[in-house]
């Protein structure tokens, strides 16, 4: 069987295993259910070599220039939350997808679906926020579109942003470049965004100052490009948190990531809110952070590079890549034991038990 044929066969097998009849919220949580949906429904029809890696961006070559190209749909409730809003989230999210693909973001497009009845003042606020984020990230919004849907059908406002960037020649990033012994770094504290949004929804009645960390991580990424081929892999841990993103890595490269619980940077309030709600910061979304896998010998250097930037002040080396057990993420607990950090099954939900 040719490679194409076996790829198609693999997709058909995946498609047959996917039996869900209706879309539910679990499909959007960013974990296993999302992946199953993408593989069984989207790749089934659209599969092609550019899409299949399912990376944060697609890498295109056009007339000798390497480009990164990505798209993101943004749906968040509430629209405004401490530290940001759907606008800054949209711009930074796309900028970050480009950045972690080893590219400099140049231009974005923004398509708005507005719900009938949305206050124009809210729309202005969102757009102003996008403009500010774009300036901060040094990108332009070069194209846009607007549609309006009937009341009750739009969630207020949804934004889809696409972005294009110029790939930096110094780097060659990919899961296949990761080796045992490599170190895992994060650029700062975990769980800020997801908790900020959860609390902003208001029905948990928690009073706490947690702000979303939404920001462009391009400056952080760019500082690491200096490491050249010793920078193996970059990602921004959004939905599903650090745990889900690392699981995607280990599945792709067939190695194991071992995390040190004591090394994980988490803000006190985020840790406390997670304790109260029975959540694990490893699974909570981040919108202004970077995970980097770096050759062992240059980890300290990478750490210093990250910390040199205000956004990376709390960067830390949090783990290491090992050959076994294949495809897993493990956590060495502060208590002295260890556990498997599985991929998220659905949105992390507060619990009382």
């Amino acid at each position, binding site marked *: 069987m040719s490679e194409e044929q076996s790829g198609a066969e693999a997709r058909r097998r995946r498609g047959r295993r996917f039996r869900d009849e209706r879309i539910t919220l679990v499909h959007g949580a960013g974990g296993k259910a999302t992946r199953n949906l993408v593989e069984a429904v989207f790749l089934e029809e659209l599969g092609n070599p550019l899409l299949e890696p399912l990376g944060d961006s697609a890498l295109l070559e056009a007339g000798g220039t390497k480009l990164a190209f990505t798209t993101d749909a943004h749906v968040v409730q509430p629209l405004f939350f401490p530290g940001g809003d759907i606008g800054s989230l949209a711009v930074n999210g796309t900028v970050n997808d480009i950045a972690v693909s080893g590219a400099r973001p140049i231009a974005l497009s923004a398509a708005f679906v507005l719900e009938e009845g949305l206050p124009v003042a809210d729309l202005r606020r969102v757009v102003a926020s996008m403009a500010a984020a774009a300036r901060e990230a040094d990108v332009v919004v070069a194209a846009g579109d607007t549609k309006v849907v009937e009341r009750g059908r739009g969630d207020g406002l949804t934004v889809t942003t696409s972005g294009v960037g110029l790939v930096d020649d110094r780097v060659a990033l990919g899961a296949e470049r990761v080796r045992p012994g490599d170190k895992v770094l994060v650029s700062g504290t975990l769980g800020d965004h997801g908790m900020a949004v959860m609390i902003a929804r208001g029905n948990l*009645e*928690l*009073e*706490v*100052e947690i702000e979303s960390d939404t920001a462009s991580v391009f400056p952080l990424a760019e500082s690491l490009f200096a490491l050249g081929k010793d920078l193996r892999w970059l990602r921004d841990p959004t939905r599903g948190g650090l745990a889900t993103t690392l699981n995607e890595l280990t599945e792709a490269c067939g190695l194991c990531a071992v995390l040190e619980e004591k090394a994980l940077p988490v803000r*006190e*309030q985020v*840790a*406390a*809110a997670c*304790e*109260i709600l*029975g959540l694990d910061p490893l699974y909570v979304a981040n919108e202004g952070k970077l995970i980097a896998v770096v050759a062992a010998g240059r980890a300290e250097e990478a750490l210093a590079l990250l910390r040199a930037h205000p956004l990376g002040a709390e960067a830390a080396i949090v783990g290491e890549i090992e050959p076994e057990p294949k495809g897993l993420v493990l956590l060495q607990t502060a208590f002295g034991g260890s556990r498997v950090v599985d991929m998220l099954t659905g949105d992390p939900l507060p*619990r*009382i*038990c």
Partner: protein
Amino acid sequence: MCLGIPAQIVEIVDPEAKTAKAEIGGVRRIVSCALLEGEARVGEWVLVHVGFALDRIDEEQAAETLQLLSDMGEAYERELAQIRETAGETGAT
């Protein structure tokens, strides 16, 4: 059923309704003190479960438990140290 978090009473909100504000690690929540004996006092530590202060945390007992554990820890460390020293003496590892 089991998620009970130690939190400190930082404010009495409504003595009639027996509500107070409890705080842990910088997070605050209004809790009901209806299940506590007597009046809640600012500074007290309570166990919070589903928005209720289930009971007070006995600070003395907590200290005792920790002391017990800590003593065990010290005894263990001393033993380990002894093993290391005597290993050096006999030349065994």
